[in-house]
């Protein structure tokens, strides 16, 4: 059956009707904190249960526990601190017990109870979460943009932040209803920040062979320069699904969230979020959520051993490639042939071909997908 939400209850902290009107009015008189797009997305994800069991940003006790043990203070698996930063000056007049209004692009977003205000150590955060303090790591670099204090406490959403992909945004309660409506009991989720090549299609279909349905869940939001733009990824997947997937076998929906490039810890975090969306299985590929050579190719697999109580089954699928002797897409585990028969998919080569508007070989990318990607003047973030 569809997975239980992490922690047993789907968090839903969205104000409606008269309560919302009252809170909107009260928020006018509260101290305000303006959030960027990334934090606004976190607020919406918390409120709609994507980050269940979190009901707000972490307090210090949970923050320390997550940092040190990859678990909340109640022992529930949780590997990435979800925190709200603020410049020290902004929090000078706040105290525990106060309520503050969170704004986004000048509009009221949410109200938050201040349960904790605490200092944090960027270097410790980087070392624990990213396993590096190298400012060349995109996640570490982002820490430098954050304020000196963290504020923890529960929140309640008043307005949805704008979403360019409105037609593809489903919240956890909605995917759960959808999966039940389709009669799906087992659902495999696929996290991506790339346009699909044959390797991605292969692992998705391998997993779909043994489950009722596939949730393709591209992460949209902040990514490092050089990654594919969100709209390119979405268009590419729409084209792939239209031509190459059986009808009603796939749900394509977006997850707005910051890409952290935290490798192993982020792989577990990605799995927990998809568990909240109802997935029972989660594909963990080679160097999941990795960047450069900060993590070993299969470090993101090893970490799952520390969470026998995760509640979603990771599917570890090795690097796939085209084998001319096997006559199709295979992976290392099932192909006995040597390198001379293997056509590996190089992400770098693929990007270069697409950037130069050259059609990649059909052993790497579907023609229809490549055509869609090449319609964009510049498919990469800057």
């Amino acid at each position, binding site marked *: 059956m569809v997975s239980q939400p992490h922690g*047993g209850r789907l968090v839903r902290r969205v104000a409606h009707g008269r309560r919302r009107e009252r809170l909107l009015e009260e928020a006018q008189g509260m101290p305000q904190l303006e959030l960027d797009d990334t934090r606004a997305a976190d607020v919406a994800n918390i409120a709609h249960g994507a980050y269940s069991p979190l009901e707000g940003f972490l307090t210090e006790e949970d923050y320390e526990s997550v940092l040190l043990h990859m678990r909340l203070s109640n022992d529930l698996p949780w590997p990435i601190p979800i925190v709200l930063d603020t410049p020290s000056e902004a929090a000078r007049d706040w105290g525990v017990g106060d309520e503050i209004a969170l704004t986004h692009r000048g509009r009221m977003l949410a109200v938050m109870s201040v349960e904790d205000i605490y200092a944090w150590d960027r270097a410790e955060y980087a070392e624990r979460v990213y396993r590096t303090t190298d400012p060349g790591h995109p996640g570490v670099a982002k820490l430098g943009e954050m304020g000196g204090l963290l504020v923890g406490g529960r929140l309640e959403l008043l307005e949805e932040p704008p979403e360019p992909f409105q037609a593809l945004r*489903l919240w956890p309660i909605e995917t759960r209803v959808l999966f039940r409506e389709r009669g799906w009991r087992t659902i495999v989720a696929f996290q991506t920040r790339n346009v699909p090549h044959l390797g991605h299609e292969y692992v998705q279909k391998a997993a779909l062979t043994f489950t009722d349905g596939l949730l393709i869940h591209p992460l949209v939001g902040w990514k490092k320069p050089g990654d594919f733009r969100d709209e390119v990824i979405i268009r590419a997947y729409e084209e792939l699904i239209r031509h190459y997937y059986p009808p009603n076998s796939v749900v394509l929906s977006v997850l707005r969230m910051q890409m952290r490039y935290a490798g192993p810890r982020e792989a577990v975090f990605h799995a927990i979020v998809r568990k909240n969306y109802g997935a029972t299985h989660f594909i963990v590929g080679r160097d999941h959520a990795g960047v450069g050579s900060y993590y070993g190719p299969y470090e993101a697999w090893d970490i799952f051993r520390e969470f026998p109580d995760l509640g979603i089954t990771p599917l570890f699928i090795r690097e796939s490639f085209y084998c001319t002797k096997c006559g199709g897409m295979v992976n290392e585990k099932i192909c006995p042939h040597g390198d001379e028969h293997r056509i590996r998919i190089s992400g770098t080569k693929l990007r270069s071909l697409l950037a130069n508007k050259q059609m990649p070989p059909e052993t790497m990318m579907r023609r229809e997908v490549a055509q869609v990607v090449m319609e964009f003047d510049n498919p990469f973030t800057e």
Partner: protein
Amino acid sequence: MSIPVTLYKRIQELIKDTGFTSVSQFVVYVLRDVVAEMEREKLQAEGLSEEERERILEKLRRLGYI
């Protein structure tokens, strides 16, 4: 928490040449697994009102998911 000496020795033998470095570590691992399973069995999915369910279905139809 105490366990019988015979069980302790049995576990000690079992975890030789594994990734577990102590009996305690093994016991914590096993207990977490068992506790999570028991918690799962106790839990029930949060119910939706018919009105809310219909509203969600309407959105899913409008977006073409159903």
